[in-house]
């Protein structure tokens, strides 16, 4: 029953999305012009590539890795050594192509270490990635020629021949280099999801045993995905070298790997664009949130815990669920519940946050006096009033939130049933 006429409509939606993405990348520094913003945007680009490469393993392959920073970090190290070689005149590669050196390095290490790592799957795989990450981090303290010891390895990105007058001295030039790499890498990684290997990788995630019975060597599939993820991780690392001009041992550390895991999961591992959201949040958290409050790691851990329990698909899944509700025209029915949920949550979190901030203040900043500013109000960490006040606010908020949550759950349930009925109706109408 082969179709004689093949009609492939021009996929307008796809072109619109990618053009918008390119536009955002181009125009962002023109909208957010401060130095801090451009620095953050540059870091976001790098983080997007890193988190997307991590999601090749986590979201697409079902492989939980605790050591992805090994590949971004080693890519960084190779790239900065290459940069120094370019500065020293022994290597003649344009600075613009140095991230690819990082990518090749990441790929090389993935080929080497990945063979051992992908021999297992699931929980043992996660443990092995942890062990390998610790191994590499411990080695970084031992071999100071390559890893630069305590001070790390630094370089100067203004090296070699200027490329059409671009020296990469100013941050904005580095940003645009990163933006180009980001666009290309995101496009390539998206294309990967539409290839045979990409699809079989998804099958391996869903049911590794069955994949063996349709002719594929599951371990080989995982190994190849690992290598591809390592390549893009290395590119991210190489861009990082150019951006910061210094590489220290923490780039292969457990903290960095943990951050990739945390934020990719937070953004949403089940959709392609989830890690992009996660990467943006990661930079905002590390740069801005850490300045705002000393308790940011605690908040982060708690948010992550709640996400795993209540929204394991991440922010992306929350967006998609609501888009689905909107598509069926039911968003109107639920927005009041959302409002109630949001307001009561704010009250509750304000109370809790006030108490946490006061505790942190007592622990860390008590030399600066007793008062701490929180959401515009001044709290006295040593006065009982502040404590009672915050506790009261939090408990009231908690009670109201629980009420709002139950109402929301009822409304959501009704809407979901309606949507299911509508889907069935459309199916049978065909």
């Amino acid at each position, binding site marked *: 029953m082969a179709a004689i006429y093949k009609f492939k409509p021009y996929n307008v939606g796809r072109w619109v999305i990618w053009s918008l993405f390119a536009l955002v990348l181009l125009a962002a520094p023109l909208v957010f012009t401060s130095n801090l913003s451009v620095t953050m945007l540059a870091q976001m680009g790098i983080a997007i590539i890193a988190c997307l490469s991590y999601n090749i393993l986590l979201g697409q392959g079902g492989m939980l890795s605790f050591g992805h920073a090994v590949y971004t970090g080693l890519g960084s190290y190779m790239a900065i050594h290459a940069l120094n070689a370019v500065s020293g005149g022994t290597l003649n590669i344009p600075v613009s192509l140095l991230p690819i050196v990082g990518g090749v390095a990441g790929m090389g290490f993935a080929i080497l270490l990945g063979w051992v790592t992908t021999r297992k799957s699931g929980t043992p795989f996660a443990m092995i990635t942890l062990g390998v990450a610790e191994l590499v981090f411990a080695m970084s303290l031992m071999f*100071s020629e390559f890893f630069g010891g305590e001070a790390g390895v630094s370089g100067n990105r203004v090296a070699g021949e200027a490329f059409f007058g671009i020296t990469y001295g100013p941050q904005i030039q580095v940003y645009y280099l990163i933006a180009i790499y980001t666009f290309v890498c995101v496009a390539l990684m998206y294309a990967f999801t539409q290839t045979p290997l990409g699809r079989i990788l998804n099958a391996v995630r869903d049911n590794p045993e069955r994949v063996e019975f349709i002719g594929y060597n599951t371990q080989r599939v995982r190994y190849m995905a690992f290598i591809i993820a390592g390549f893009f991780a290395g590119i991210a690392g190489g861009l990082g070298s150019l951006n910061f001009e210094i590489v220290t041992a923490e780039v292969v550390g457990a903290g960095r790997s943990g951050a990739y895991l945390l934020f990719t999961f937070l953004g949403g591992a089940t959709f392609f664009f989830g890690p992009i959201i996660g990467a943006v949040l990661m930079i905002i958290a590390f740069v801005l949130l850490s300045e705002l409050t000393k308790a940011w790691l605690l908040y982060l851990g708690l948010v992550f815990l709640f996400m795993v329990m209540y929204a394991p698909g991440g922010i992306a899944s929350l967006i998609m669920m609501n888009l689905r509700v909107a598509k069926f025209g039911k968003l109107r029915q639920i927005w009041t519940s959302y409002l109630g949920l949001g307001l009561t949550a704010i009250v509750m979190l304000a109370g809790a946050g006030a108490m946490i901030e006061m505790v942190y203040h007592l622990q860390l900043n008590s030399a600066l006096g007793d008062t701490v500013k929180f959401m515009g109000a001044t709290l006295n960490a040593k006065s009982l009033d502040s404590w009672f006040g915050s506790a009261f606010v939090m408990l009231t908020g908690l009670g109201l939130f629980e009420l709002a949550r139950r109402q929301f759950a009822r409304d959501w349930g009704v809407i979901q049933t309606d949507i299911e009925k509508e889907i069935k109706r459309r199916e049978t109408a065909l």
Partner: protein
Amino acid sequence: MEFFIISMLNGLSYGLLLFMLSSGLTLIFSMMGVLNFAHASFYMVGAYFGYTLSQWVGFWPALVIAPLLVGACGALFERLTLRKVHPFGHVPELLVTFGLSYVVLELVQLVWGRTAVEFLPPEILRSSAFTLINHSVNGLSVVWGAAPAEMCSAADAAIRVVCSPFPATRGFMMLVALLMLVSLWLLLTRTRIGLVIQAALTHPEMVESLGHNVPRVFMLVFGAGTGLAGLAGVIGGSTFVTEPAMAATVGSVIFVVVVVGGMGSLSGAFLASVLIGVIQTFAVAIDYSFLTLAKDMGWALSAATQENSFAKLTLSQVAPILPYLFLVLILIFRPKGLLGTREG
């Protein structure tokens, strides 16, 4: 000679501490399929609880109360959080414990600060259990407790006396670990609850349909596992150092132990703990590098080789990565682990 004996004992005691931790981890993993990423965090919490409690009621009561408290916290966590995530699969369970490790670290730093605290062992354990005296004339002898200064030095310059003390805390660690091991084995094989646990290890649904409250058993096992970690924490914290970084340092090693020993195998965990404990303790004390070896053997090396950073590395410098090297080797040559049965 005395170096060998003392190092062996030190290594054994460290290995037994690792086993205290990894046994709880293995038990939880075998039972529930959850690899508790926050296990080392419970170890740390045990140390800190022990520190605070020993300041209020003394060390010995703290030794009993702290693990119970930690176990209660573990059971609470299982009840509130882990149980909720259980239907989602093993990866979310691992992630939830991963998130917990972050939260616990922050909370500990919040309450007790970011620097190390002085958690001292009780008076009776502060000196040596025994001292080996190597007298170049009289030979090897043992003195219980700490050897007085006169015994450790000789008036005659020609006689060499070396005193090697074995800390009482280490001895106590070994004692507690062995006691715990024996009682665990007895519990699992001789009591009814142990039988239920053994059955639920492989067939939880069947056990549930036989009328046992499997979720409650899970909570008990998780609490017991974390309680064991807490006990190890009280002992480890008073013997070594109690600081926020203690979770990270021991955390990765016990995961290596569990994978090397074979996931789900208690005896494998025992073997791997002792092996890694002994090897690492010996390695840290040995200052040999390839270069010193070559010198001893009388090999002539080129100038380039002598400058090579690999060759200059002493065994003691390499010691931190030995467990991970071990891991990689096991994975290449024997992926099931030393005594593994479950494929994980």
